[in-house]
């Protein structure tokens, strides 16, 4: 019996030993840069210190900054090169880059936010700005402008406006962008249809699309995607999508939405715009109908023209959205993305310094080559323009043009806006399949959207 017990114990000890061994093995690959959690903890103690105090420290001691962004191969390569240059100019600052594809980027950030472990600098999107600012996750950058770390002398206010919430700057625009209509000039020539001139109306647009459909027939569509941006349509009517405090819709008359949906629904029923199953077959920007020569138009954002031109392998042009007869200006300059400094950062001054470098350094911007959109500094724009390819030049030209048809951007969307957006998409699907009338859909939209937004009431 004693022997049996001895055996059991030895088995147990063997297991314990194996477990310990395996744990030891697995710990081994722990490498550099595993100090984030400590950094986050220390950060809270440092919050009280003033920006100026931090700055004086940053000149001497060695600092490590974490920067997160999403993008594709081109952006990663260029940004990493620019970072190298920054490190060369600032030997005391080491930057650890945490880049990802679009897939998973926001999920990772929200997890890190929950763990109080956000990187020092994060690439921000306009749609998420308010969510992050309202939870106190982004640092106010005004003190760094005052102290001169951030220099916006060559930057027009309209480029910065998108990064402001309640007057304070929380995010620095990395490239100007704007909603735009891409078109294929060769197709206009082939069809003998005159190109649309800025100031054209929604009716002009529908007629042109119809003409194209008549001319080219089957498997061809006057416009590739339907239901494009109700927000702009509203702005041209002098209304806004959300009310000023984000607790409800900003327009009172459902007529706007009914007209807008009727407009697109009619084009859809006539077969002028691409039907739902065709749109759903599109597998990415590079697969849009305009690339395949199956539609003359695509509503999208101006920075996407670079990739679109490359995919189509022929010149494409940009023009503004249609307007209402005697209506208001509807377009706006929109930051394609921002850099923000998080409140988890231990070295906000060094982070601000990096953003300044990204904005103002000519050499760095030659490397970055306007890949994130049109640079906000006029000095940089001048230097960069001659080096650009066709698509890039078209994008620069458009950003100049659109300023004549713009008014300031609406404040960042309130919390719940992703839910409201999804609601709109679902109703549009029902319209596409003829399951609902525009009138009923508009009523339902108002009811459900108001319910979602009501939660924002304090």
């Amino acid at each position, binding site marked *: 019996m004693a022997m049996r017990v001895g055996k059991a114990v030895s*088995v147990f000890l063997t297991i314990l030993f194996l477990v310990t061994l*395996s744990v030891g093995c697995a710990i081994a690959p722990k490498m550099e840069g595993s100090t984030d959690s400590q950094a986050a903890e220390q950060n809270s103690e440092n919050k009280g210190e003033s920006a100026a105090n931090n700055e004086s420290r940053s000149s001497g001691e060695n600092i490590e900054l974490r920067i997160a962004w999403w993008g594709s191969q081109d952006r990663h390569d260029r940004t990493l090169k620019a970072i190298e240059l920054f490190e060369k100019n600032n030997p005391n600052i080491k930057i650890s880059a945490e880049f*990802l594809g679009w*897939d998973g980027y926001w999920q990772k950030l929200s997890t890190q936010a929950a763990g109080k472990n956000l990187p020092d600098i994060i690439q921000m999107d306009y749609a998420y700005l308010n969510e992050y600012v309202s939870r106190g996750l982004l640092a106010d950058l005004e003190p760094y402008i005052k102290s001169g770390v951030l220099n916006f002398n060559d930057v027009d206010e309209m480029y910065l406006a998108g990064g402001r919430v309640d007057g304070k700057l929380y995010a620095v625009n990395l490239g100007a962008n704007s909603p735009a209509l891409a078109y294929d000039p060769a197709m206009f020539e082939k069809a003998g249809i005159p190109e649309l001139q800025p100031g054209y109306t929604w009716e002009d647009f529908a007629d042109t699309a119809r003409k194209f459909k008549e001319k080219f027939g089957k498997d061809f569509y006057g416009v590739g995607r339907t239901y494009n941006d109700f927000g702009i349509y509203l702005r041209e009517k002098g209304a806004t999508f959300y009310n000023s405090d984000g607790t409800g819709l900003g327009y009172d008359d459902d007529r706007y939405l009914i007209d807008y949906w009727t407009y697109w629904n009619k084009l859809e029923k006539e077969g002028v715009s691409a039907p739902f199953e065709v749109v759903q077959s599109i597998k990415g920007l590079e697969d849009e109908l305009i*690339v395949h020569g199956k539609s003359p138009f695509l509503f999208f954002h101006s920075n996407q023209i670079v990739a679109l031109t*490359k995919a189509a392998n022929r010149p494409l042009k940009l023009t503004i959205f249609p307007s209402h007869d005697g209506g208001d200006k509807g377009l706006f300059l929109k930051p394609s993305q921002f850099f923000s400094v998080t409140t988890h950062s231990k070295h906000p001054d060094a982070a601000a310094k990096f953003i300044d470098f990204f904005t103002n350094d000519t050499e760095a911007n030659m490397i970055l080559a306007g890949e994130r959109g049109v640079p906000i500094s006029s000095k940089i724009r001048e230097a960069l323009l001659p080096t650009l390819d066709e698509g890039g030049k078209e994008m620069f030209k458009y950003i100049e043009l659109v300023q004549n048809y713009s008014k300031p951007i609406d404040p960042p969307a309130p919390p719940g806006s992703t839910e409201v957006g999804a609601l709109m998409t679902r109703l549009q699907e029902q319209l596409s399949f003829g399951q609902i009338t525009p009138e009923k859909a508009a009523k339902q939209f108002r009811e459900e959207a108001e319910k979602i937004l009501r939660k924002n009431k304090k």
Partner: protein
Amino acid sequence: MNSAARSISFHFFVAVFGLFMLYPILWTIASSLKPESEIFLNAASLIPSSLEWNNYAKGWQGFGTIGFNVFFRNSAIITTTVVVGTLFSTSLVAFGFARLTFRFRSALFACLLVTIMLPAQVTLIPQYILFQKIGWVNTWNPLTIPAFIGGSPFFIFLMIQFIRGIPRELDEAAVIDGCSTFGIFWRVVLPLCTPALITVAIFSFYWTWDDFMGPLIYLNNVKLQTVSLGLRMFADPSSVTAWGPMFAMSVLSLLPQFIVFLFFQKYLVEGIATTGIKG
């Protein structure tokens, strides 16, 4: 039906159907070799107009100074560690549940099963905070160590079912020969479980290799990241996606899985000669 006719009809049926099975991989390989502009313009075709090997070169280069060799090395280390850990813990635990009696066994088994019924999305954040508190974020520990302590309930349950299929007379014979409980596990049950162990190895390899959420959440430093993350770094639907390199690296990322399966499955062919052991 004679055996030759049977063999021919087998091969005919299986090969025709096999084409359906092969289609996704053929399409992915074809896309990886197409010039970038052709991937969508000529999407239905399985034959590239010209072979664009440059997609592979460009993809392999990766991002800045970090090439795909880094991602492949990391994935290989993590995956191998997890497979070893899973085999180790799964077989021990399964033997315990299937063959031994102890207090609260049924209750603990119920706990084991219930853990896989909760969608991982909602335990993700508490788990992240836990691993962060013990300083494991930005290391491989959250990905590898759990395999050694418990692994996946899926595998444990699988092994339990297999062990319960092994005749108990064999254990008793071993006891008479003076085997300890561990001896029965090691010398009798484990060898008879080879097909199940192979299955566990193949699955845990594939799942770990393909896992996106774990590496995404826990690994910050790009030098520590895996192939599954690397593949996504090519794609940004809001501006531009490097389709060619992405397809090229997707093909390469399938290779190890392919090889592992091809290598391990042959042990399923040979199986083990249970004949004769019994009695």
